[in-house]
Every structure is written in C-alpha cells, then in structure tokens.
C-alpha cells in the first residue's frame, strides 16, 4: 500500500469525468420510444381535413377506467365535421384516469383514435389533464382544411372510408 494509493481512487473518479456516460441522459438527450409505445391519444383526420371520429362512443365503452367522454352530434350540409351523418361533437380524455391500455384504439371503428408516443404529460393542474377535442385533434397537414367544410374527397362516406387513401393519392398526383 503506497502513499499515493488513496489518490488513485480520486484518479479513477477524475478520469471517469472524461469518459462517455453509460446512463440515460433523459432531458438533454431524448431517446425515442418503441414505435408502438402507448403515449397520448390523437384524433386523426381524413386527407381533406375532415374528422374521422363519428362520435360512436365505442372507445368510451371500451375504456376500463371510464376516462373517455364522447358526445355525438349531427353533421349538416352547412356545418360538416366528418363525412356521413354523425361526428364527435365533444371529446374528452381524462389523463388522470387513462391507463394507456389501448383498448379504445382497438374499439375505434374508423381508426380515428390512435396513440402517439408523447408521454411528457405531467402537470400541476388536474383540469389541464382533461384533454379536449381541440387538443387531441391531429394537426392539419398540407392539403388539409380546418372543418367544418364540405366533403372534398367524394360524394359520400364510401369515398372516405373505403376509397379514401386511393383518392387522396390520386388527388396528390394530379396536383402540380
């Protein structure tokens, strides 16, 4: 045991400071989750911006924690939010109840509701953790238009729910 032995220990500590870190450096270094991670929800849109949600409440029915509240509404020719007759007039998810099980996603008949990978939801106000429809709606991508507006993809809901992707592709090809 030499005189310098105690300093050796400090040496290791000091040298480690210049080594590459092995631990997660979360806030500074964000690592993506797995693609199918159950993060917060999103309500999707048709290629023309109309909402996919028809307000059927099957997600609310499937939810084991009773975290989802939906209320349907009537589409009219003047105020159209989704193709077809019915749309989700009110949509709320209470993230203080949601357990992220994804049963709502499986229940959704129109693939309107999906989950993103976003998880940094912590908040200091319970009210803010009840996400409303405006917060859950997917952003408008190029070519989309904020509802209400008439159906752009085709005449009836078949053009949306069955032929939708094809029509959208065609429309994009035709566009200059």
């Amino acid at each position, binding site marked *: 045991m030499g005189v310098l032995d105690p300093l050796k220990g400090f040496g290791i500590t000091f040298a480690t400071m210049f080594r590459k870190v092995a*631990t*997660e450096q979360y806030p500074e270094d964000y690592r993506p989750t797995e693609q199918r991670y159950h993060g917060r929800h999103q309500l999707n849109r048709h290629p023309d911006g109309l909402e996919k949600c028809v307000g059927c409440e099957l997600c609310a029915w499937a939810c084991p924690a009773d975290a989802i509240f939906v209320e349907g509404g009537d589409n009219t020719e003047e105020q159209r939010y989704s193709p077809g007759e019915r749309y989700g007039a009110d949509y709320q998810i209470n*993230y203080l109840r949601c357990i992220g099980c994804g049963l709502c996603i499986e229940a959704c008949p129109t693939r309107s509701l999906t989950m993103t990978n976003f998880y*940094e*939801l*912590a908040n*200091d106000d*319970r009210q803010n*953790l009840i996400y409303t429809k405006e917060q859950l709606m997917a952003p408008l991508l190029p070519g989309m238009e904020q509802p209400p507006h008439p159906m752009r993809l085709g005449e009836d809901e078949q053009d949306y729910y069955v032929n939708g992707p094809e029509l959208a592709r065609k429309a994009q090809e035709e566009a200059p």
Partner: protein
Amino acid sequence: MGLEEKLPNGILLASVEKLVNWTRKSSMWPAQFGLACCAMEMMATGATPYDLARFGMERFAATPRQADVMVVAGRVTNKMAPVLRQVYDQMSDPKWVISMGVCASSGGMFNNYAIVQGVDHVVPVDIYLPGCPPRPEMLLDAILKLHAKIMDEPLGPARARDKLESGKTTPMIPSSVKYAKDPDKLAGPRDPNGASGGIPLVEGGKR
C-alpha cells in the same frame, strides 16, 4: 421561515428568492411512498441507469423528517390515507408532493369503495403525473417540472401577492423540449404534433 416575511419587497429580494429556490430545488430528498406498481418505476428511476443523483435526489428516505418531496406512487387505499397524511405532516417545510400514476392522481381504473379517488383529497399535490405506470422518463419530467415550479415560488407574502396579482403560472414545458440541445431534432416520429407534443409553449402555462 420567518426572516423573509419581514423583509421589504425589492430587487435584492428577487435575487435572494432565486438563490433560495435554487438551493431548494437542487437537492430535494424524496420521501418514497411506494404503494403499488408505480413504486417499481420509481425504483427504476432511482437506480443507476437513470441516475437520479444528477438532480441531488439519490437519497430516497424512509425518514420523512429528512425529506422534501413525497412521491406517492400507487393507489392509496382508504386505510392508507391517514398514514399518508401522517408522513406528510412529519415532513419539514418546505415540502412538495408528486402524485405518481393515475391511481394516486384520481383513483385511476379503481373507481371503488376502497381507493381514495385522488390523493389530493388527503394532501396538497404539486404535480400530477399520469401514466399506468409512468415510465422513469415521465417521473423525471415531473420532477423537472416541479423544479421549474419551485424556481418560481415567491419568497414571502408580499411576493406571493405580486405573483397572484400578475396571474403568472409556471409553464409546463416538456422537459425534453426545455432541456433539448437541438429541439428541431425531436419532431417527427415521437409526436407528429411537433416537438412540444402539440402543446403551444405559451407563457403562463394555461393552454
């Protein structure tokens, strides 16, 4: 604490306030209150890979008198509630509470006779953390948001009145955005709504 309550409001105090808050947030000792599955994630957060020591929090205390922040992790039964309250009461001021997971926050899927429907029925909660259970990153995010809150805490009643009158609240910015070296890189697969998770970063924190 006593002294700051008697001090006049001024520029000097604003800086002192920042210094005090900084010291407070820099080494918060957690009083662990693991009750269920969330406790596993809390332990994972405290373990080596996530290295909670970066925030001065490596000392998970079972001694409430030496703790500053209580992490309620898991569903709180009605039978546990008085114990929870007692532990909270035994902690020394200033003290904070993180409600970890949906069960602690609202009862979650256990909407029944046995579970307290939200731990804020028992103790004042500073940060609600959803998730079932929240992954360690989410807990870190909650801790960092609590740090931000502590940094904005007023020192003394005069400052508190000022803050209340101005209506300012601490914005709840996702930590990966707030501390990102390159925020633009974050957009994309993580969240199609953009780097902030679709949350507009407005001053005041209210969306």
